[in-house]
């Protein structure tokens, strides 16, 4: 994994930071260079940290780099601010995941570049702990 590639996505991943078009207010996560309205001026937008599961799957046949974690749940999550994103759902038995499960963002390891490469972190979601 390219270090610069990982590094430039750190802050958006660590803080769930997207952006918002100054012209029309459309929000994006991840940020993108040009808005659908044509605008190119954006401001930071911090996503809500809690939401619910819309739909999900259990990955049993992983891509390269994720073998150590199978089986794991990946879900389409709708956050409390209406933004949606894809993320793993952890700290839960796959059998207990269902649509509407309330979840909150957590900071977790995503993968490692072998024993000598960098450790890649990012956001995942877990059932809300009260």
């Amino acid at each position, binding site marked *: 994994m390219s270090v610069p590639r990982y590094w430039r996505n*750190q*802050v958006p991943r*660590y*803080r769930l930071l997207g952006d918002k078009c100054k012209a029309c207010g459309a929000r994006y996560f991840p940020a993108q260079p040009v808005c659908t309205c044509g605008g190119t001026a954006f401001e930071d937008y911090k996503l809500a940290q809690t939401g619910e599961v819309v739909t999900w799957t259990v990955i049993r046949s992983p891509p390269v780099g994720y*073998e*150590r*974690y199978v089986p794991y749940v990946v879900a389409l999550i709708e956050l409390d601010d209406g933004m949606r994103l894809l993320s793993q759902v*952890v*700290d839960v*038995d796959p059998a207990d995941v269902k649509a509407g499960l309330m979840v909150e963002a*957590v*900071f*977790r*390891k*995503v993968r490692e570049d072998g024993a000598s490469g960098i*450790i890649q*972190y990012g956001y*995942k979601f877990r059932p809300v*702990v*009260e």
Partner: protein
Amino acid sequence: MKTLRQVGIVGYGAYVPMYRLSAEEVNRMWGTSGAPVEEKSVVALDEDTVTISVECAKQAVKRARINPSEIGAVYVGTESKPYAVKPSGTIVAEAIGATPSVSTADYEFACKAGTEAMQTCIGLVGSGMQKYAMAIGADTAQGRPADALEYTAACGGAAFIFAERSAETVAYVEASYSYVTDTPDFWRRAKEMYPRHGNRFTGEPAYFKHIVGAARGLLQETGYKAEDFKYAVFHQPNTKFPITVARTLGFNMDQIDPGLVVGKVGNTYAGSSPVGLAATLDVAEPDERIFMVSYGSGSGSDAFIFTTQDALKEKRGGPKMSSFIERKRNVDYATYLRHRGQIIQ
């Protein structure tokens, strides 16, 4: 030790992962019958000291109700850094939004690395150098298979944000003290996977000597006695030691009970007494005095006196230590090995 301007805790957070390995399961594996704790916490596949530290830090920032960009220091104390060289503190600082105007470093002093970080943060804030400084003690402790410490080497941590004492702080620091000698009771060489220890040597010449030394030093300096405290938190490597040292120093079970979580989660090493402090703050009322003494092998102890304030009751929302303690799933020994990365893949 006292600061020029008084320092308080403006926010705190604590965490243990949800998986548990019971002493019973360890005994099943090795045909033994020990029970220094009931069970210990085990990280999920995707957790490490950095993720635990970030979890604690985020809770602390939320409770503190401060702008994280104003945090001027993030110090992480641990003996299980994911990188041998690359600070955990920078990842935590970046994750919570404290960068770039921040000082960070990782501390190592076995189980008292977290309280070392606390001493430093108290100094930074007390001197006026920083408005907010965060100290974290967290570990994913390595337990040697079939060793006595396998029952207890656990995962968890706590974070404390220090600020000048004000109406916003939940507790203030009355005084602190450090007592350190070179005592090799427990160590790990750089390329080794597991630490080694001196077995019974870790008791009297190590744990007890330094905790008692720091405790008596602080009590003498401040003129307090054990009965002046509502609560006491001691480093908790197992259930027996903190109860014994409490008794030696004149503290009773009611005082140490809220902070004594080791039976349920094991020894979270650099998180050990910090987690105990957090658990105590979770239930304390305002105007109560808390005595805390950590212990780190090598060896040394940091002792603190905190007094709670009115803000405590309304600034400890969100999940408490008890929520994380109760959120649990027991795993078998094989799953434990998998989670600890001890299966060669």
